[in-house]
């Protein structure tokens, strides 16, 4: 059971070109998500990626 609905996820970059965070659409709302495993949105993104249910797009 997915406890959180995530319909898209894309990395954002810092000025050095490193992945800084993720811009995701969660329950229909655009949200900035930190790369912190203790953050429930990021944890759920990782879980859905591992389950093959979600892909994090590269930054533009």
């Amino acid at each position, binding site marked *: 059971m*997915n*406890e959180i609905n995530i319909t898209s996820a894309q990395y*954002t970059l*810092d000025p050095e070109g490193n992945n800084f*965070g993720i*811009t995701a659409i969660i329950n229909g709302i*655009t949200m*900035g998500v*930190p790369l912190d495993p203790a953050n*429930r949105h990021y944890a759920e993104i990782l879980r859905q990626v591992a389950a093959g249910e979600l892909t994090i797009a590269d930054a533009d």
Partner: protein
Amino acid sequence: MAKDKLTDYDATASNNTDVGGISVAEGMLPSGVNNAIREQMSHLKDFASGTTGIDVLSLADDDASHSIKLQAPSAVTADTTFTLPDGDGTADQVLKTDGSGQLGFADRHSNPSLIINGAFSIFQRGTGATTVSGNDIFAADRFKGWANGGGTYTVEQSTDVPNNEFEFSAKLTNTATDGSVAAGDFYAYATDIEGYNVSQLAYGHSDAKAVTLSFWVKSSLAGTYCIALYSTTANRSHIKEYTISSANTWEKKTITISSGDTTGSWNRTNGNGLRIYWDLGSGSTYQASADTWLASQDFSTTNQAAWIGSASATFFITGIKLEVGSTATDFQHSSYGDELAKCQRYYQEIGHYRHLAQGARWTTNQVFVTYNLASNMRATPSATATGVPSLSRYDNGQSADATSLVTVGGVEENTTKAANITIIWASGYDPTASLHYVYSNTNGDKVALDAEL
């Protein structure tokens, strides 16, 4: 040995050959009879006045088959006199001492609750009706709902309360029924408790403790309902049934889980330590037996009332308390400020009007801003912009060019004291100046920071 007091007397009659040194053995002097009776009366007087004591006071039941005994410690360091109060106390009161031996009845001290916002005074996201359709929907702080299967319900702050001790409750209203709940359909209301706050339960260890959940509830649909304790990390759950006896009537429920879970890896730090579910009619996938620990995510039994299938059904709840032990104590009300601060560890909002933050240009379509948080958050928060905040450049005075905010981008990790956020907008505006403000002229516009469990 002379029998000088009651405790010197022997249970074997033939061993009692004197009373206070006066012989009552075979062949005693006739004058010894009255002297022995007098001596024995003095022993009884000494006992009555407390001059001499006894080892134990035995209070036998009607057929003398068993007794309750009151006994002093084996070694008493100083004489102590307890004086009982005059008359009985009121229900649930306990005996207390004034430190000088005078006993009296007093109200019990309440245990602290492990639940935040149990009186539903804090609704930072708004007190109006929020529709729960899908997963993980918050309205009241620290409480979230799921409606996954076609049915929906709303959650709002209500002033319908069980008594004047409370000001608010959470009101759930069925807004779209699911009369044919599929196995995997999922309808529940829940609160998650951080691991730090439940580590004292010692769940996952041999000395796991009992807990007691108490709450006030009122529903338009009477019947059997279920709550459940659940660990997201240990995947362990424990279901308990309770009964709403009368429709549309406030009832207080007290539920004790007397055996703590000794199995599994329960979070004891800043993760999800313990979830409490109130089921609203979920499918069979989440149904199991009550009153036992389960190695699964279950929170309902087959007896659960089909609340989600009852058109326009309502469910009010308040005064929720979870405490260590097998006894429910009175709900403890903390100040509004304290309760708000506790909630802001998990969720807080910035702005509403005018300047929301200031920052510096990052890339051609991003500004990097820092929000100082009202309190340290549990984890690095996710960020969401509500409304249409705008970006303005300040050089020598306000720049004319401003653009509507498109979205909040990434949030820098490991920043629980301040939130470092990128603000991203559509192309066509290059914020070449170094200092920028995110601002809004509309009440309600805000940036929400979410570190919920």
